[in-house]
């Protein structure tokens, strides 16, 4: 039995090595994806082009606008003298944001009254708009704190009307770097995509070429064929995901706070669930094209619903149920918990149990189907 499994495994490795295109896709694509996420698809918004309308033109108003434009979030692209010009620039899309300082800004401040500034944001890109909004609030608050300190020292009394500094802190990803959030997810996505597709393709290819018929007539048992097919691709998926993680940690400096051993163990569990799906896909498809279409039934919802891009909690309840069925939905919190928070199994056990149950069920079901299909 071991000899026959080894024979299949050896053959599979030769297949992969002889196919330079697939080989490079297997290795290069995940790393390429990582660099795309790392450099291009950053959801952090900085350098928002901003138009300034300063009707006050005093030291205080200058001080406030300096706060804005030195924060890095807003770039002073235009300076206008009336509201009409400002709205034109935003309408045309030349500026994404407008900062309006009214003419009695410093007057109110000097009299110890509440002064107002207005920020106008182009909301057509919600991500950008949200960042701009939060940044503006933070900047104004920061300004308030400084100002009240100054006024207090000048007047020698406590300033009561300045609101309490409402500092909102973001946990685990204090710099709000989307990379730190995205990369653990990406590792999961790569693990899943590769293991499902590679196993499904490896088996379906035998059907397509007709070699499966010859194999059926040999003493090779279905379970031997299955293991011989699964093990090499499991190793590859594992290797590539580790590579991606290594690049993330050493190149992009994503902090790895958890236990690496636990990471490997839980990835293994997740892989088992994906391989089960891959096996199932192979039993229902007759050629590689079908296999690809069928596997995208799992892969596409996984990308969208698992929380890789959008938070599951924000989805309608029915969709959340669907999301909960997907293994990736359970693996992502594990990955993020492990990598970013550094938490242990005590915090992750619910997702781990679910993954375990899913994997056992899926592997049993698909190997029974696989067996039935072969004999």
């Amino acid at each position, binding site marked *: 039995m071991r000899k*026959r499994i080894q024979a299949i495994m050896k053959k599979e490795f030769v297949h992969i090595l002889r196919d330079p295109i697939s080989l490079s896709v297997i290795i290069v694509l995940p790393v390429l994806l990582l660099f795309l996420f790392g450099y291009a698809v950053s959801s952090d918004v900085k350098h928002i082009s901003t138009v300034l309308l300063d009707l006050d033109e005093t030291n205080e108003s200058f001080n406030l606008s300096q706060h804005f434009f030195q924060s890095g979030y807003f770039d002073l692209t235009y300076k206008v003298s009336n509201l009409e010009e400002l709205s034109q620039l935003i309408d045309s899309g030349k500026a994404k944001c407008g900062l309006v300082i009214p003419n009695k800004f410093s007057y109110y401040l000097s009299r110890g009254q509440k002064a107002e500034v207005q920020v106008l944001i182009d909301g057509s890109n919600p991500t950008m708009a949200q960042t701009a909004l939060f940044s503006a609030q933070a900047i104004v608050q920061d300004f308030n704190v400084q100002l009240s300190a100054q006024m207090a020292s000048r007047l020698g009394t406590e300033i009561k009307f300045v609101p309490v500094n409402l500092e909102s802190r973001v946990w685990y990803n204090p710099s709000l770097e989307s990379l730190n959030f995205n990369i653990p997810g990406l590792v999961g996505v790569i693990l899943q995509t590769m293991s499902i597709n590679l196993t499904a393709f490896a088996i379906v290819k035998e059907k397509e070429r007709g*070699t499966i*018929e010859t194999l059926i007539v040999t*003493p090779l048992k279905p379970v031997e064929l299955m293991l011989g097919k699964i093990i090499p691709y499991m190793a590859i998926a594992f290797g590539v995901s580790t590579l991606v993680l290594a690049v993330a940690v050493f190149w992009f400096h994503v902090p790895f706070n958890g236990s690496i051993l636990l990471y490997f163990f839980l990835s293994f569990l997740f892989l088992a669930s994906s391989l089960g799906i891959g096996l199932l896909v192979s039993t229902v498809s007759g050629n590689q094209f079908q296999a690809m279409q069928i596997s995208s039934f799992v892969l596409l919802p996984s990308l969208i619903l698992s929380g890789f891009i959008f938070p599951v909690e924000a989805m309608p309840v029915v969709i959340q149920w669907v999301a909960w069925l997907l293994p990736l939905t359970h693996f992502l919190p594990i990955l993020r918990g492990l990598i970013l928070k550094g938490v242990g199994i005590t915090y992750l056990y619910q997702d781990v149990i679910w993954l375990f149950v899913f994997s056992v069920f899926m592997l049993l079901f698909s190997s029974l189907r696989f067996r039935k299909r072969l004999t």
Partner: protein
Amino acid sequence: MEIIEIQNLTKKFADLTAVNIASLSIPEGVIFGLLGPNGSGKTTAIRILCGILPPTSGKALVMGLDSFYQAERIRGFVGYTSQFCSLYEDLTVEENLEFYAQIYGVESKAKREETLSRYELSRFRNRRIRELPPGKKQWVALACAVMHEPRILFLDEPTSGMDPASRKDFWEELSILKQKCTILITTHLLDEAERCQMIAFMHLGRVLAVGTPREIKAVPQGKVFNVILPDPVSFLSELSVSPFVQDAYLFGNILRVIVQDQEGAAKLIAMTRDRDARIQETNFSLEDCYVRLVHLEGSAT
């Protein structure tokens, strides 16, 4: 009990009955040819015997065991090459051999080397299968199927794509292999059928006749003529409406005409008189028998 026994075997794909064989026995140690055109059910029959497909009804016994439901007990004893020459195209000749040797549990490397040299594959050993000419691939497939010295060898259209010289060598090899195992081979080439000890004609899933080539040729009654003339096609259409002609068909540019008796022969000769034709009586070939049997089958149903 014979090494292969078929009893009331049918295989249906939706509405199509691909195989419907009432009974067929194949004795040990022969080369048994399944003959028939494409779509006659040869491949389906062989796939059932190999345990790839379950029969719809009836039984196929191989070495006394059910070919499908007891397949696991048969597998080490059979070798199979499929119609499409199912080797791994991106693996070399030697890697394919090594793979099947490991799957069949053939440990000895000497056995592999011997097989390689016996089939004159040694100089191709490092070539990938996809770089081989189609004829050579079938030799590799055969090599992969015989290393474990099977008792039964199933060969589905093994000589397709081979040149005549290669085919001759292949059949010589089969007669050597026959000393140790039973060979079931499918072909649509009737000259190959002459080299089988026993043949079965298949047509639309049914077996029309079984026996040695000589027995089969002895069955039909009548006389066969070769007719060579300038415009065989128009003459053929004339013959097909002549009641005394049992069968007439073109074999290359020679018309073969089967008539029932001496009277029919005289009428045929009379018809050819003004046509600048050469006419000659011959013996029944397997081709004639096949055409005759299909014709009789058609008029019977």
